C-alpha cells in the first residue's frame, strides 16, 4: 500500500477543510478504499478518517427517515424504521457483501463504492476510469459481468451497489456539506453516466462530505422489494437486480417505482417501466410487458447478452412478489 498521511477529524467543518486538498481521500468503513489501495488502484497521499463525525443515527425526519452517512450497513438493515417503511433498502443491504463487511461499511461509502470491473481493479489493464484515455480492456475482453444500460464508448463498468438501486427506487436524497455550504442532491442526479469521462463518478466536489441520506414519507414504499440474482447463493455481486415499490388498489397499479442494478453503469431508474405499469391491472401479463421496456435500450457485448433476459425475469419476479401476484 502506498504510504499516506493519516488525519482524524471530529466535526464536519474540519472534514470539509481537510478533504479539499489534492490527492486526499475520506475514510469511513474502509472496505472499499483499503481494498483498492492494496491493489494500487487508489493511491491517496492523505487519508482523512471521518469515522468520529456524528453521522451514525437513523431517525424520523420531516415525515420520512434520515439515515446518517456513517451508519453501518448492518445497523440500517436491522433498523425498525427501515424494515417497516422501506423494506427494499433493508433487503438490498442484507443481500450485499458479507456480515463482517456490512458491520464495517458505511452508507456514504456505499454510495461511493467503485466498480468491480476486473480491468479497473488490475492496474496493468487499460481502463479509462482508472487512467483516463488508456482505453477499455473490457469492451473486447471478458465482459460477462458488464453493463447493458448507460454504457458509453469509453466504459461499460457496472455500478456495483445494491443499496443505491433501492435508494433510486425510493427517491432518496443525498445531503452534503461542502466549502460553499450544505446542499441536497436527488439520488438520480448523484451518480454520473460514464460518457467520455468515466473517471468522474458522482457530482461531489473536493471537500464535499456526505452527512446523511433522506427518504421521503411515501406510504406505499412500505410495499417495496429488492430481488437480486447472482452466481452463488450469497456474498456475490449482482448479475441483475431490481428494486420495486408498488401502490396497488383494487387490483390496479396506482403508482410504481422501478430501479435496476447489476446491469447499468449507474443505479438505473426505469421510468418506461413505471409508466407502463401505472393504471394497468396488477397481473403477470402487465409486469412482463412493462419489464420488456426496461431493456429496450440495452446494448450488449459478447459475453453479457444473457443479462437482457435475466434482467426481465428478475424484474418480473420483483413486481409479482411485491404485488403478491403469481
Amino acid at each position, binding site marked *: 500500500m502506498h504510504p499516506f*498521511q493519516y488525519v482524524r477529524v471530529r466535526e464536519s467543518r474540519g472534514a470539509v477543510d481537510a478533504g479539499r486538498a489534492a490527492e486526499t481521500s475520506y475514510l469511513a468503513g*474502509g472496505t472499499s478504499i483499503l481494498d483498492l489501495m492494496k491493489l494500487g488502484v487508489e493511491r491517496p497521499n492523505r487519508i482523512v478518517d471521518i469515522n468520529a463525525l456524528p453521522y451514525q443515527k437513523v431517525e424520523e425526519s420531516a415525515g420520512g427517515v434520515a439515515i446518517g452517512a456513517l451508519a453501518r450497513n448492518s445497523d440500517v438493515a436491522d433498523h425498525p424504521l427501515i424494515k417497516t417503511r422501506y423494506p427494499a433498502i433493508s433487503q438490498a443491504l442484507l443481500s450485499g457483501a*458479507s*456480515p463482517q463487511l456490512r458491520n*464495517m461499511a458505511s452508507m456514504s461509502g456505499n454510495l461511493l463504492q467503485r466498480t468491480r470491473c476486473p480491468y479497473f481493479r488490475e492496474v496493468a489493464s487499460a481502463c479509462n476510469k482508472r487512467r483516463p484515455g488508456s482505453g477499455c480492456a473490457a469492451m473486447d475482453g471478458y465482459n460477462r459481468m458488464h453493463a447493458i444500460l448507460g454504457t458509453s464508448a469509453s466504459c461499460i463498468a457496472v455500478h456495483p451497489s445494491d443499496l443505491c438501486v433501492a435508494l433510486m427506487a425510493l427517491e432518496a436524497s443525498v445531503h452534503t456539506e461542502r466549502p460553499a455550504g450544505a446542499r441536497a442532491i436527488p439520488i438520480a442526479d448523484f451518480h454520473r453516466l460514464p460518457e467520455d469521462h468515466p473517471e468522474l463518478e458522482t457530482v461531489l466536489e473536493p471537500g464535499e462530505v456526505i452527512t446523511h441520506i433522506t427518504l421521503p414519507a411515501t406510504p406505499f414504499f412500505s410495499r417495496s422489494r429488492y430481488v437480486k440474482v447472482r452466481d452463488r447463493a450469497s*456474498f456475490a455481486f449482482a448479475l441483475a437486480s431490481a428494486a420495486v415499490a408498488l401502490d396497488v388498489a383494487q387490483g390496479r397499479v396506482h403508482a410504481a417505482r422501478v430501479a435496476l442494478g447489476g446491469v447499468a453503469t449507474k443505479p438505473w431508474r426505469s421510468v418506461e417501466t413505471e409508466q407502463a405499469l401505472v393504471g394497468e391491472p396488477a397481473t403477470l401479463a402487465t409486469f412482463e410487458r412493462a419489464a420488456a421496456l426496461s431493456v429496450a435500450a440495452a446494448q450488449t457485448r459478447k459475453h453479457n447478452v444473457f443479462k437482457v433476459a435475466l434482467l426481465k425475469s428478475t424484474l418480473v419476479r420483483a413486481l409479482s412478489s411485491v404485488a403478491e401476484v403469481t
Partner: protein
Amino acid sequence: MGFLHLTPRLERRATPIALTLGGGRTLRLGAFEGEPVVLALFARAGAVAFSEETLGGLRAELRGLGAVLALISRDGIWCFRPDDELELLASADEISETELAAVFAGYGLMFPAGGGGPDRAVYVIDHEQRVQFERHAGPGGGLGDLLSALRSAGRALLAPPRDFALSRREVLISSLVAGFTLALLDGCAKTGTLPEASAAPVGAAETGAEVDVTLDVNGVRHRLRLEPRVTLLDALRERLALTGTKKGCDQGQCGTCTVLVNGRRINSCLTLAVMVEAEKIVTIEGLAQGERLHPMQQAFITEDALQCGYCTPGQIMSAVGLLRERRATSAAEIREHMSGNLCRCGAYPNIVAAIQRVGKEG
C-alpha cells in the same frame, strides 16, 4: 536447534546472574545454557502485571519456539518455558535486594529506580549466552523510541547476513522473539506506568509518518508506533505475535481474518489499526477462559467442524459474532449469515452443526 546463532553481530556475552530463590535454589543464567532466553528486567516496583491471562495468549506462540522467558523484577521472579506453565520462582519478599541490585546494575538499570535513569530492559540472549539484542527504557517517556528501536531489532534479527542463509524456522523464531519482546514491554502499559494514549486527534505530520496507537486486544492494552497503512490484521500478527488470526485473501473476501471489535465481527484485513484505537478487540486467542474453551471452540471440536483448520479461527470468531447478532437459527439462515467465511476443505455441514449446537445450548 537453530535459534539465534544466525547473527553473531554482538560478541558480548551476557552478564552472569546469580539470584537466591529460596529453598536453596539459585537462578543462574547458565541454567538456561543451550536455550535462548528473553530476559526482561524491571527495577521499579509495581511495574509487572503479567497475569496468567496475559501470558496465556503468548503460550501458543512460545510453544515450539524453544525460548525461555525469564522475568526479573522487584515484584517477583518468573520463568516461563515454552511447554510449561508460567512459574513463579520467587516472590517479592523472598528476593534479596542486594542480589537484585547487583543483577540490575550488571544490566545497566538504576536500582532503586528513580533519578530518570532506565528502569526496565529487555535482552535477547542466544543459546551461547551472547547478547543478541538489548534495549533499555526509562520512566520519563521514550516508549515510542523504545518500541521503534525494538522493531528495528526485530527487523535486524530477521535480516539475513550476507554469508548466512536463514532457514524458515530461524526466521520464524526470530520474528516470534521480536514480537514477544514487544508484547512484554506492552504488558507494562497495563499497569499504568506508561503514558496513556492522548485524547487528541491522531495526525501524522507527513506522508507515511508513524503514529502512536493503543490497541486493546483481549483485554490487554498495547502501545504501538506504526505507519497508518498497517492493517489491524498485520498489527495483530506481525507486531503483537497474535498469529491465531489468519491472513487469507487480504481483500475481505474469505473471512479468515475475522475478529470482534466492540463485540461485532469485522474483517481485520480491511481495517487499519489506527481506526480501532481504543476499541475493544477480541481475537481467537481471547475466547478461552484459561484452559476452558469457549463453547464455540468446543463445539467445533465436538462436531469435527474443520479439516485443515486454516479458516477455523475466522469461522469461530464469525460464529461468535453471529450468535450475538441473534439473527440465525435454522441451517439455511446460518449458511446465509456465515457467507463471509470460506472453507476450502468444505467443512460447511459440520460448521453449521457446531453453530446450531451452541445456539441450542444457549
